[in-house]
């Protein structure tokens, strides 16, 4: 199986003068096969968004140090020049952001923002581009697309804006779509619409999808492979059925037990994970999660756990939850 995207040992550090670097993403490696849906899950500050921005080369040039490689079709995206990357962005890989209101230009009609991509990458112009844009809007389920071409972003609802953003991202049929918390700003019924739309479009166009979210529920229904991030590193990776049935990393395990579930009897005490991310230890000589971990042993605060793969599951833990525990 050849991968569409190979991320190897990606590290992103934010540098400041006279202060130690902040390492946001540390040694992240994963593959995305053509047409595959891969999830990156974690809480705020775990590095999931920085990972996606690094893949898209959207991080600022100054004050950021990126190392490792991101290969797509054999080319390392990290070594491309600015103009080469611009030619690929939108055409080969594109992105849907969390907040559609701040990622759409507020003073330009939706139609122009869709045709911009078509003009740039597919050389369309005039009525033809407009026609194609209307078809795209219709495809993502925007009612009355011809009229909506002339609407400004503020005239659309949150769900419609997100649909418009998806239309822009898919305008050139990219082979990889990165969705960064695409439904977090939306209500649940609208979230269900958007998730349904995304998985339908991915199935239809054969594009691969990297889904970035903090919501394990979203991942459970959508992603084939799930990467759980903590403190900038992948701590566990498995196929979704295995991950949810037998979470091995104490963080994944704790996270699954701490969320109130719709199908669980109400009123039970939740098993909360103690502390918060501010308690993290540096990965350099410990496990970052150790101070919050109920299974922490002495080694955890002294030795960095390495990622080990066995039977299709990656695990970075000294004292994982036993496989048969439940």
């Amino acid at each position: 199986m050849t991968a569409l995207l190979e991320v190897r040992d990606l590290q992103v550090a934010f540098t400041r003068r006279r202060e130690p670097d902040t390492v946001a993403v540390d040694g992240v490696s994963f593959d995305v096969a053509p047409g595959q849906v891969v999830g990156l899950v974690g809480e705020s500050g775990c590095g999931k968004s920085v990972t996606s921005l690094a893949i898209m080369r959207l991080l600022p040039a100054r004050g950021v140090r990126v190392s490792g490689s991101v290969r797509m079709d054999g080319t390392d995206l990290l070594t491309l020049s600015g103009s080469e990357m611009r030619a690929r962005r939108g055409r080969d890989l594109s992105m849907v952001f969390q907040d559609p209101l701040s990622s759409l230009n507020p003073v330009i009609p939706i139609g122009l923002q869709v045709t911009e991509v078509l003009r740039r990458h597919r050389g369309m112009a005039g009525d033809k581009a407009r026609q194609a844009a209307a078809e795209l809007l219709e495809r993502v389920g925007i009612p009355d697309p011809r009229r909506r071409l002339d609407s400004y972003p503020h005239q659309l609802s949150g769900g419609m804006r997100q649909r418009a953003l998806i239309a822009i991202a898919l305008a050139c049929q990219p082979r990889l779509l990165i969705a960064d918390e695409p439904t977090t700003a939306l209500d649940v019924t609208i979230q269900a619409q958007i998730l349904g739309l995304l998985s339908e479009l991915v199935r239809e166009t054969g594009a691969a999808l990297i889904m970035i979210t903090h919501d394990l529920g979203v991942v459970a229904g959508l992603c084939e492979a799930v990467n759980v991030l903590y403190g900038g590193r992948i701590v566990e990776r498995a196929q979704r059925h295995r991950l949810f049935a037998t979470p091995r990393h104490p963080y994944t395990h704790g996270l699954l037990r701490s969320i109130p579930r719709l199908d669980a009897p109400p009123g039970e005490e939740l098993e909360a994970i103690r502390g918060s991310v501010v308690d993290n230890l540096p990965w350099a000589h410990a496990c970052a999660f150790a101070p919050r971990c109920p299974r922490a042993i002495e080694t955890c605060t002294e030795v960095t756990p390495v990622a080990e793969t066995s039977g299709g599951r990656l695990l970075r833990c000294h004292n994982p939850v036993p496989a048969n525990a439940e």
Partner: protein
Amino acid sequence: METSEPLLDVRDLAVHFPIKRGLVLDRTVGHVYAVDGVSLHIGRGETYGLVGESGCGKSTLGRAILRLVDLTTGQVTFDGVDVAQLKGEQLRTMRRRFQMVFQDPMSSLDPRQSVESLLTEGMKAHGLSRGPAADGARLRELVDSVGLPAGALRRYPHEFSGGQRQRIGIARALSVEPDLIVADEPVSALDVSVQAQVLNLLGRLQSELGLTYLVIAHDLAVVRHVSDRVGVMYLGGLVEEAPSQELYDDPQHPYTRALLSAVPVPDPELEDHRERILLTGDLPSPAAPPAGCRFHTRCPWRQPTRCDDERPALRVIAGAPAGHRVACHFAEDIRSGRLQPHRVDVEAVDDVLAPGAVPDLPGSVTEILGR
């Protein structure tokens, strides 16, 4: 649960915000019907959960109960007193007994006040201060009860993490020994792993202090977890109300069904085989709510004429327990399966007045107030 008379009894509460236009004349050109005829009651020691999507009026309802926004009509009886009629000093004194915990602990805590000063302010205002020694002990007890170290008292809000700030917000509400706490989205600004800590804390405090809660949230799983009874709101009205387990086992209103089926569950087996009721379109503008049943524009079970013309009232349908009320004309037929869902075509939500006059699409009060 409904032992004696309820602590809080809300009757036909409505809050309509005027939409004004014009520089000099300041004409009122319409109203946002944020809350439109809600009746509910909350027993002592009970937790009532209000759930709904943004723009449904749940926050406004909570604020109206606390008199933080003016009621247009309706009655709010708190422990036998009609709060809606209270003014000035009487209202101020009464406010000690109902407190609020806000969504965003950073913007609801004054960054220039230390935790100690935040917590004593309310005590002083309500004459609960009993001299420095007693107050000091009380403060230590307060921070301890919400799981913060005593050293937290001398620190400032920015020195804490989100979860800890929310604990401070809860301690502040508790400082005046209230009976009722209205918690508006108490955990939605927090990370998943921290949410559980705060939810457990709220539960523990309730059993220790005998508090009554009104928990307002958009997350049905959270609301169902903490609440004894749950009310589901849609466009300013309650569409269903039931004990929380009952609501999950036997949702009767089409909107509740759709809401339940839309909440993602972290279980791939379940997700793969779940039956989803996908609603089409968006929430209509609360400035021009649809006539008849407010949900009819998106309802997959809508029947001709009656749904469009007559607004259904909350009622108990045959075979359901007394505490389970639903506002749907055809709840029996939907429940028995005699009515099957049909396709709903998306209606483009049209701007009611001239574009820009109103927050022309679903705007929640949180957003409008934030503007």
